[in-house]
């Protein structure tokens, strides 16, 4: 099996919806304190459905690709469905991830859950990402 799936290679090389949305309805930040991978996702929501999403991500290639993949799959999805997105779902969207890349699927599922939680609670995460690069 190739180290990276064609989907991961595609999204890493040609990231979709990169950047933050202006005036988003929900902002989500999830980071892994040990490895340092971080995803910040901004979304616009209408009638309990994500209509548009944008991301900023830092970390390994799999995490960057998963962030891009999430923005495509979550767009158009109702919040109750987003709340149920799990690691297996993200893995399937990514076309599979190697054992050392699985943390990216966990991170992706965490982002989806937090998006649903933040929307339900009417809150947004603070701006945790800031790159000096």
């Amino acid at each position, binding site marked *: 099996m190739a180290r990276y799936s064609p989907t991961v290679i595609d999204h890493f090389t040609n990231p979709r919806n990169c950047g933050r949305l202006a005036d988003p309805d929900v902002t989500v930040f999830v980071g892994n304190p040990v490895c*340092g991978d971080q995803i910040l996702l901004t979304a616009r929501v209408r009638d309990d459905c994500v209509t548009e999403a944008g991301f900023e991500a830092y970390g390994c290639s799999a995490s960057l690709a998963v962030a891009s993949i999430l923005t495509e799959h979550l767009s158009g999805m109702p919040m109750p469905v987003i709340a149920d997105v799990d690691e297996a779902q993200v893995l399937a969207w990514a076309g599979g991830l190697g054992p050392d890349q699985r943390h990216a699927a966990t991170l992706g599922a965490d982002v989806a859950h937090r998006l649903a939680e933040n929307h339900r609670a009417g809150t947004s995460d603070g701006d945790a990402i800031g790159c000096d*690069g």
Partner: protein
Amino acid sequence: MDVVSMLGMPGAALRVPRPQWRQSLSAALLEAFEFHLANNGFYRALCEAEGIRAGDIGGDGDLHRIPLLPVGMFKQANAHVMLTAGLADIELEIRSTGTGGIPSVSRRDATTVTRASVGIFGGYRDFFGISKGAGLFLCPSTAEVPEMGMVKVFNLLTGMLDDHRYLVHEFSFDPNEALDQLRRWEGRMTRHIVGPPFIIARFMRFLELEEIPLQLDPESMIIMLGGWKQYTGRSISREEFDANAERLLGVEPARIRDMYGMIESNMLAIECEHHRKHVPPWCYVSIRDITDPAVELAPGRTGGIAILDALNTSYPGFLLSDDVGEVDESDCPCGRTGQTVRFRRRRQGAELGCCAVSIEKYLDSQQVVADCDLAGSPAAAGR
């Protein structure tokens, strides 16, 4: 001497006469430059923007004209643009997280991993001459932090040893466990200590405070990487460290060796017995004017450290780091030629960033949590 010969005979490559070193290094770097210029659209555009074309870089006098990538680019979300190799060819991702929290990720293809591993292994053989003994690794294992550059570099040492043990588990360190392990090896194997300076300093402080006598073996070495600045901003004094190591562990200063490198580069500068850090023969360290990185400073002058690395095929290994220091091109008493590099400090405004700093910060935060738990426990309440 070409790159393959340098990697195969690092000892010889590090000791060639100075004119041959310059010639070999220039040829290797020129070949690497032309490879990336031909195969990396982003780098080609960067070169064009700087007015550099194929054929503009000739002899060693032109090396400073090779366009550099700022290491900050490795933190950017769109770091894929730097790659000469496609993601499908990337075998290994190595990361370092500094105090800012954004990871710097470098991606290496199979050729680069092979070359870097062989280069580091060869460097260890030439500088340390280790082929047996036991290593007490005062850092997490690669199993715990598989992508952390510092432990990956340390881990290559284990293949030369008869036994080894990692003593930082889940970001906690118990000096009693380290002491027990050293005692178990006593009289059976030469004991070496490997790790970032701050954890070894902690272990020595423990020995001193507990008044525990410990003398390692005549050929024991202390091998370090990770820098001398702590996350608090305070620096560990090298002189004090060496004096303590001699007094508390019985290791003479000539056998205490520090190394300097960064995860974005395949350059690992290893200290010889005279405590000069030798730049590998496939790398050139160019010191740049802090205010104008296009200007190369003469050996001995302090400035921004740029590293030109001929081994990298996954991305152009021509990097402008956030470190400040100087190079020395005078002959070293150890007999090695080429350059030696001295790190002074981080560039003004750059975050304090390396694997060791992250481990230390995390170790300390765990300690705070442990102290709080203890203070809040029923036993503590009854004191």
